[in-house]
C-alpha cells in the first residue's frame, strides 16, 4: 500500500472516530463534562517532556539544520517509547481509571488516537532508520497535527 493511501485511510478512520464523540468537541466543555480531567489520568510525563524538548528545538536560533534534525530524530526514538507506553495504558481503559465517567465512544476515540500516535511515530522511526530522512521529517510535521487533535479533545488546560 502506498504512503498516500495509508495516510488517507488513517485520516478517514480518525475523522469517523472523532465524529463519534460529539459531546467533547468544544474545548471549553472539557472541564465541565469532566472528560478532560478524567483523561488527564492517562498521560505520560515522558511524552510531555519529549514534546517540550522538540518544541524548544523549533525555536533554536544557532544550531544548524543538520544538528536540529539529528536531535529531533534522536528524541523521536524516545517519543516512540512514550507513545508505546501511552497506547498500552489506553488499552487498559477504563479499568485503570474506574472513577471516570467515560462513554464507550470516548474510550474508543482515545484508544484510536493513542494508536495513531504510536503508528505515526513508528513510521517516522522506520523511515529514518532506512535512510529516508526527509520523509521522516515531513511525517514528524504531520505528527504534530495528531498531538493537537488529541489535546483539543482530551486534555484539560
Amino acid at each position, binding site marked *: 500500500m502506498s504512503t498516500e493511501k495509508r495516510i488517507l485511510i488513517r485520516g478517514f478512520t480518525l475523522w469517523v472516530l472523532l465524529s463519534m464523540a460529539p459531546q467533547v468537541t468544544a474545548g471549553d466543555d472539557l472541564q465541565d463534562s469532566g472528560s478532560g480531567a478524567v483523561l488527564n489520568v492517562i498521560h505520560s510525563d*515522558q511524552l510531555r*517532556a*519529549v514534546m*517540550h*524538548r522538540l*518544541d*524548544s528545538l*523549533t*525555536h*533554536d*536560533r*544557532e*544550531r*544548524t*539544520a*543538520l*544538528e536540529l*534534525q539529528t536531535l529531533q530524530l534522536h*528524541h523521536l526514538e*524516545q517519543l516512540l517509547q512514550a507513545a508505546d507506553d501511552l497506547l498500552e495504558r489506553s488499552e487498559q481503559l477504563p479499568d485503570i481509571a474506574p472513577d471516570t465517567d467515560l462513554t464507550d465512544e470516548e474510550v474508543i476515540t482515545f484508544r484510536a488516537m493513542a494508536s495513531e500516535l504510536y503508528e505515526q511515530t513508528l513510521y517516522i522511526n522506520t523511515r529514518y532508520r532506512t*535512510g*529516508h*530522512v*526527509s520523509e521522516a521529517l515531513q511525517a514528524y510535521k504531520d505528527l*504534530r497535527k495528531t498531538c493537537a487533535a488529541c489535546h483539543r479533545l482530551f486534555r484539560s488546560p
Partner: protein
Amino acid sequence: MNYPWRISRCVVLACVSALWATMAQAGHNIELELGGRLKLDLIHNDSPVSGEHLSRADLAFSPRSIALTSSTRSDSELTARESRLWALLRLPLLHRQLSAYAEIDFSETEPDNLGRSRLSNIPRLRHAYAIFGPLTIGKTYTTFVNLSAYPEINDGNGPLGTLNIRQDIVRYTHDFEWGHWQFSVEEPQTTLSTPAGSAFNPEDETTPDLVTRLTWEGLDANLSIAAMARNIEADSPGLGNRIDKWGGALSVAGYWRLHDRDNLRMTLSWGNALGRYVSFGSFTDGALAPGREIEFNDLVSGFVAYQHWWGKNLRSNVVIGLAHVDAATGIVPASANETMASSHLNLLWSPLTDLTVGVEWLYGYRRQVDDRSGNMNRFQLTSIYKF
C-alpha cells in the same frame, strides 16, 4: 596557519561533491535539502558606535565597540543581513550515512578605501562541514560551546559570556546512552596586545587548539563540561625570535527545564587562554610583555538566561552576561577592556511554527583598565521566518 585549514575545507567540499556525482550516477538514494531563514531587524541605537559610518557593531552586539563618550545622536537601521541559506546533502556510504552541510548569511564586512569597516551584503560562510560516523570535519561551532545553553534572543551575536566561535575543526564524537564525549583539534589563532595599546594577530600558529567536552543529555536537562588547551604562539620578524606559551580554559554549561516550558540556561567559563573565544574578540589571548614574554589574561565570563512562557506561543527571555579579565598591571595597555556586561529582555510571539516576531531591549556596558567606561541601549524589532 590559516591556509592549511582553508585548503582542508575545500578538499572536504570537493570530495563530497565528487562522491555525490559518482553515487548519483550509480543510482544510490541521495537526498538534497535546501532551506534557510529570512530575518528582518529594525534596530534603534541610542548611542551608535560608528560615527558617520554605519558599523557592524550597530547591528549586532559587539561589547568592545561600546562608545566611552556619550552621544546625543541616535540612529535606526533596517537590515536583513542575518538571513541565512543552507544546503544539506545526505548519501549512503559504506553502510553508513555521510551528511554534508553548508550555510551562508549576509553579514560580511569589508574595508572601505580608508581601511574602515564598511557594511556590505556579501555572502559569508557560516558553516561548511561533513559528518561521517563519529567524525565531523570542516567549519562549524567550536566543541567548546554547548549550544543547548544558547538563549533565544533577537541579537545576532548573543550575550556577554557567549562562546560564539565558528572555525575549522576535526572532531571525534563518542555517544553514550546518557550523552556524548567529544574531542577535537581546531583552527588556532593568536591575538596579543602590546603595552603601547595595539593588538596584533601574528598568524604564526603551528599547534591546533585542543578541545574536549563531556555532555550529559537528559530530556529535561543538559549539562556539559569542556576543557581546552592552546599554545599561544608568535614568530613574526618584528619580534625577532619565536615565543610560545601553553594555556587552558574550562567551561560549564547547561539547560534545565523548570516548570512546564520555562527553562534556565547558563554558561560559565574561565581560564588564561579564553581570549578570542569569549564575546566576539573583546579580549586578547594575552599581552606581549617587555622582554618578549607572553603574559596571559586570566578571564572569567558567563551568562544566565531564563525563559518564561506566557502562553502557548508567547514567551520572554531575560539574559544577564558578564566578563572580567584580571589584567596584568603595566603589561596590559590602559585602553584594554577589563569588565563588560550585558542584559537582554525580550517578548517573542510565534503565531506559526516557523514564524517568530518579537521586540528586545539590550543594555551593554564596558569598563577599561584605566576606569573609563561606557554603556549603550538598543531596541530591536525582529521577524524571523524559517523555510
